[in-house]
């Protein structure tokens, strides 16, 4: 379980980041963690309607890598990349409304969790549940940058599990051949649902897959936010120079289950606790800031307090948000017609039923 540290940056170099930027990284990681903790509370109160997905222990991967992007660059997050979306400009209020299936959520109640995007301004794209599919999509997004000679890049995340899909292979191969300005990050958190990476792939290093596509593959410590930033920054710079795709494998560990219902019975005893104790990305980073950067603990506590306030305020607003208008579900399947008519048996009816059952689960478990 030792994390490869061979590629970790020289701590003294702090990757060229200013003190202010270093504190910003801390803020984003804390915001990610605290927001998810708030979502857990709301989930237990049955205010989160569907499943809840955590990135506990993986915040550095998402935050550090997304921090290397410019606003005009396009990010394609996966289910454990809430942190990257926050860095890219998604707000806690949007995330809360989305999970709570509110009518003013970014998808107006159509999609769950962090499946949402904003390609008009902040440039992150809504994912789907079929793993690997975003890789070919991002090949196309970044192919467009190359064709239009725009100095923009794309960043797409996949998990260790998605590297087994055909879509991943086809997408990264196409992007490599086309020298698309794309960075592909494999966030190796050692489990795809219950399946350990050893049962997912016989190769020891997923970064080695890069050789088969003729692109560079690098591995870095994903629980070191500076290392995640630095390795992504270099790949982004390379893409922006027109040198094509880089595959990055960030080594991390998924401390919570696939989703909130998953009791992780398949994880060897003590493994989660060991990671929590010895390799928590926030603890590690806080120690580093106080020990090496002269940041006073009080400064970090101030950030923590600011995060709490922001999340409290966002929660209050989200709770007040209205439920979706039932008939809004008929709008927007096509550009034209903009809205489909209700079916014959529903003519003139606003809502099909009075009561909207919230199943205890979607059937994945009894509780």
């Amino acid at each position, binding site marked *: 379980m030792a994390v490869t540290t061979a590629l970790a940056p020289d701590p003294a170099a702090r990757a060229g980041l200013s003190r202010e930027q270093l504190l910003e990284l801390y803020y984003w990681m804390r915001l990610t963690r605290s927001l998810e903790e708030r979502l857990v509370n709301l989930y237990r109160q049955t205010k989160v*309607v*569907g499943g809840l997905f955590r990135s506990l222990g993986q915040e550095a991967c998402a935050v550090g890598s997304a921090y290397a992007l410019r606003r005009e660059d396009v990010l394609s997050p996966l289910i454990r990349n809430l942190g990257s979306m926050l860095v890219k400009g998604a707000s806690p209020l949007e995330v809360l409304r989305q999970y709570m*299936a*509110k*009518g003013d959520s970014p*998808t107006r*109640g*159509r*999609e*769950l969790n962090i*499946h949402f995007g904003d390609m008009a301004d902040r440039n992150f794209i809504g994912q*789907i*549940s*079929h*793993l*690997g599919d975003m890789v070919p999509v991002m090949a196309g997004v970044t192919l467009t940058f190359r064709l239009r000679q725009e100095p923009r890049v794309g960043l797409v995340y996949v998990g260790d*599990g*998605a590297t*087994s*899909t*055909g*879509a991943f292979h086809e997408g990264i191969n196409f992007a490599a051949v086309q020298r698309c300005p794309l960075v592909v990050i494999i966030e190796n958190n050692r489990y*795809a*649902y*219950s*399946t350990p990476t050893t*049962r*997912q*792939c016989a190769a020891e290093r997923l970064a080695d897959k890069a050789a088969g596509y003729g692109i560079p593959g690098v591995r870095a410590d994903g629980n070191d936010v500076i290392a995640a930033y630095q390795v992504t920054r270099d790949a982004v710079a390379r893409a922006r120079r027109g040198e094509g795709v880089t595959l990055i494998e960030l080594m991390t560990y998924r401390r919570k289950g696939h989703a909130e219902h998953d009791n992780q*019975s*398949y994880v060897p005893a003590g493994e989660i606790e060991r990671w929590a104790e010895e390799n928590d990305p926030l603890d590690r980073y806080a120690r580093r800031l106080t020990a090496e950067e002269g940041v006073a603990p009080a400064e970090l506590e101030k950030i923590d307090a600011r995060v709490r306030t922001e999340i409290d305020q966002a929660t209050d607003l989200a709770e007040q948000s209205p*439920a*979706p*208008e*039932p*008939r*809004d*579900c*008929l709008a927007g*399947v096509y550009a034209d017609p903009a809205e*489909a008519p*209700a*079916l*014959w*048996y*529903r003519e003139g009816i606003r*809502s*099909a*039923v009075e009561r*909207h*059952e*919230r*199943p205890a689960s*979607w*059937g*994945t*478990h*009894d509780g």
Partner: protein
Amino acid sequence: MAEVTYLEAIRQGLFEEMERDPSVFCMGEDIGAYGGAFKVTEGLLDRFGADRVIDTPISETGFVGAAAGAAHMGMRPVCEMQFIDFVSSAYSILTNYVATARYRAFLPCPMVVRGPSGGYVRGGPFHSQNPEAAFLHTPGLKIVYPATASDAKGLIKSAIRDDDCVLFFEHKYLYRRIKEELPQGDHVVPIGKARLASEGTDLSIITYAATVWKALEAAEQLRKEDGLSIEVLDLRSLLPMDDEAIVATVKKTNRVLIVHEDTVTGGIAGEITARINELAFEWLDAPVRRVAAHDVPLPYAPQLEDFVLPQTPDIVRAARWLAAY
């Protein structure tokens, strides 16, 4: 005898077939130690070992294709889609390779692809799908979609024993909500035979899967409030379809409402309507009508999902319209 859930009934069927026939084995994501996302395969690994309960990488094309190869060699693989929504990732190999194997290459493909399907669970657009109609148009495949625990068990056993590829849809809303005592012994339900869920004389509701229960609810309400006698025909098998049972109910009630959870356009109701038109047109006293999902991707929010999917009051309203026609 104890009542058994729909989910447990499927597990029993798998278990019994694996006990009976050593060529039966399972493949899928997280089906071993974890027992599957819904725990359908829980306990199989302990009983049959890792060679017969294989945890696969996230590679639907890979393991469905491997199932075909193993099936050619005399094995009877059962593939689990973690959610049936992911069967789209194996669509090409299923429709191009598996479905044509017997016809073009004289190779048998005795395999099952099964998985949790359907909505009413706030699963959103990628964990709620009913893609059965996408495969209805593929000669070479069979499709079953049980509504009861007893049929779930009997049909999974038939599907495993069938010499062709059977897509076995399981409704996740029913997994733990539906319970009944199962018949004793080697309980097998033939593929291609519908089941009368309720007998009646005034109007027939033809349906399958979760909406069978909504149709029964509606029938009960219509009996009490309108004095109507409603027949509910549960198709169980969609391909092949039980024309005989369809024609029999049309001749009996002369009014037909078809209900399904899948979206209306291109849904199976269209095929059923065409068959009624061809086989029993002169027996109809009213046009055949459909209650199905609106033609939109299935949204997450309860208010939206409940609007898109057919509900019991919809069936009541539609049945009243038909009865008054």
